[in-house]
């Protein structure tokens, strides 16, 4: 049939179909797009907008110019002295630390047979699938401040301490415990992606490299494994960063208070909660949120710089 139609007619038909297809495409994208905009994109824009206002939820927002930012970087002592350094220390250890750890574990797991690998990787992945409440329950039991706390009991049995330590309420220990727990639960989908990435590297690449004079397994990792799985490495890096910031609730859950004792475990996410939902200073909380978004973006820029394709 189509051959019989004149060329302009055919073109017309194609055009019509494209137009119809345009509506259908819109329909396919609409639900996701709407929810994406409502709960991710617009909230980010609103956060930026609110950060220039004073807003207490009850009265409409009042324009405040740069006041919130000025207060944030000049007068908010808790933010400058504790929250910011804490956040950087925590994110730098948990993000890159968790990342390197997940690569090393994934690499080791790739060296053993399939069945034990599946069992071991499930065990290592398990902590990351637990929600924050469950993680709180587990570690509050372990680090409980009385002598029934397992860790306290262990230390006392070993004669390393005489009195039980209030681990979760002590500014000296809280941060380290938070970092430890976050690393424990950071072997998530980034880790799974790395296992797959390593297993899917073409065997011939290794063979060629050995023929070309590659001598040991360290060279193998740096010259073949990592370059061949750059996309997975980048995905893993982004997931590691996000995970580090999404674990921000941990200090508050463990100590049971916001702000955390002595502000020792106070992270930027807790600072947002503190101002937004405890003091209802939403404008100020929004300014802190913008600071958080900037920090996350900065971290992810570094990851893209390391593993991304240079062309984009």
């Amino acid at each position, binding site marked *: 049939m189509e051959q019989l139609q004149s060329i302009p007619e055919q073109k017309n038909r194609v055009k019509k179909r494209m137009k119809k297809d345009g509506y*259908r495409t819109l329909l*396919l994208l609409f*639900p*996701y797009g709407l929810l*994406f905009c*409502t*709960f*991710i*994109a617009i*909230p980010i824009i*609103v956060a930026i907008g*609110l950060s220039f206002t004073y807003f207490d939820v009850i009265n409409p927002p009042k324009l405040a110019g740069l006041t919130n930012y000025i207060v944030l970087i000049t007068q908010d002592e808790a933010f400058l002295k504790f929250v910011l350094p804490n956040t950087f220390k925590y994110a730098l250890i948990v993000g890159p630390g968790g990342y390197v750890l997940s690569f090393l*574990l994934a690499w080791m*797991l790739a060296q053993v*047979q*399939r069945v034990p690998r*599946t069992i*071991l990787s*499930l*065990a*290592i*992945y*398990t902590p990351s*699938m*637990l929600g924050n*409440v*469950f993680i709180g*329950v587990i570690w509050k039991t372990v680090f409980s401040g009385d002598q029934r*706390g*397992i860790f306290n*009991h262990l230390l006392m*049995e070993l004669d390393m301490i005489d009195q039980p330590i209030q681990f979760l309420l002590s500014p000296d220990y809280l941060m380290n415990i938070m970092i430890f727990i976050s690393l424990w639960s950071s072997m998530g*989908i980034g880790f799974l*992606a790395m*296992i*797959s*990435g390593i*297993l*899917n590297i073409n*065997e011939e690449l*290794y*063979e060629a490299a050995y023929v070309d*004079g590659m001598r040991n397994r360290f060279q*193998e990792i740096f010259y073949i494994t990592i370059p061949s*799985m750059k996309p*997975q490495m*980048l*995905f893993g890096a*982004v997931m590691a960063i996000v995970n580090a*910031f999404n674990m*921000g609730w941990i200090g508050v859950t463990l100590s049971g208070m916001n702000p955390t004792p002595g502000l020792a475990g106070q992270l930027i*996410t807790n600072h*947002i*909660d503190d101002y937004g*939902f405890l003091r209802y200073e939403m404008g100020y909380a*929004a300014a802190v*949120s*913008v600071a*958080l*978004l900037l920090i996350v973006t900065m971290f992810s820029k570094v990851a893209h710089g390391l593993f991304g394709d240079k062309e984009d």
Partner: protein
Amino acid sequence: MANFQGSKMNPKRFSVSHLKFYIILIPLSIFMILPVVMVINNAFKPLGELFAFPPTIFVKNPTMKNFRDLFTLSGTTGVPMTRYLFNSVMITLMTVVINLIITVSAAYAFSKKKFRLKNAMFGLNQMALMFVATAVAVPRYIVIVQSGLINTWLAHILPLIAMPVGLFLVKQFVDQIPNALIEAAIMDGAKDFRIIQKIIIPLTRPALATSIVLTFQSVWNATEASNNFITDETMRTLAFYLGSLSTNNNVAAQGMAAAASVLLFLPNLIIFVLMNTQVMNTMAHSGIK
């Protein structure tokens, strides 16, 4: 020149050289799950054992009392546990199903359709991979209040449906389906809905399974909505209830908290174990280019 004997990756047979990896991996794996095993054991301990000194990890006289308490006593909030469980199950089910439908249609459009701003829009989604929900807790709260969703199931469901990681992974998978297959279906007169149903869904099973696992974990364990968008106790979820039990110093509440932990943990584990192979399959295509 070394004589090459295979990359030693993914070996088929056991070799003594694997032992060095097992020496590290096995103790580490035990360490990773030990705390989980401990909480599960706690759930079956009678109260005397739960508060015994010295503390133990494994249960000696297992009992179901904590579970009975959990189901029959209304804890500290005055609302029976079954109500929280019911909320959690319904919210999770609806979120997972709606998420699946929406994600697969958007992934299909992003992968196989041509439209303006496609790359920019997908790039936006890729940027949102590093989205940290706490940063928008305040605006989300405003959106929920303004749209009158406060104290409804939708306040739990809607914020968690658009999941950038899910769309990203599924779209990478749809990319693997040859265009010729879609074109052939169009020639045969199939519309988008049929193409999704007959081609996209069957061929992207692993990615969809992964998306289900991730959505499930994020909604089943979520407390953000219960904390921020819900003031009516009867509309809150099991994860929230566990939180309120665990911060309670009442002795019976500790046993109930342990039992509730198990109830919360088991579905996570079951779903992941069921989907494990599919998830690993998806991860091979997870790379960001």
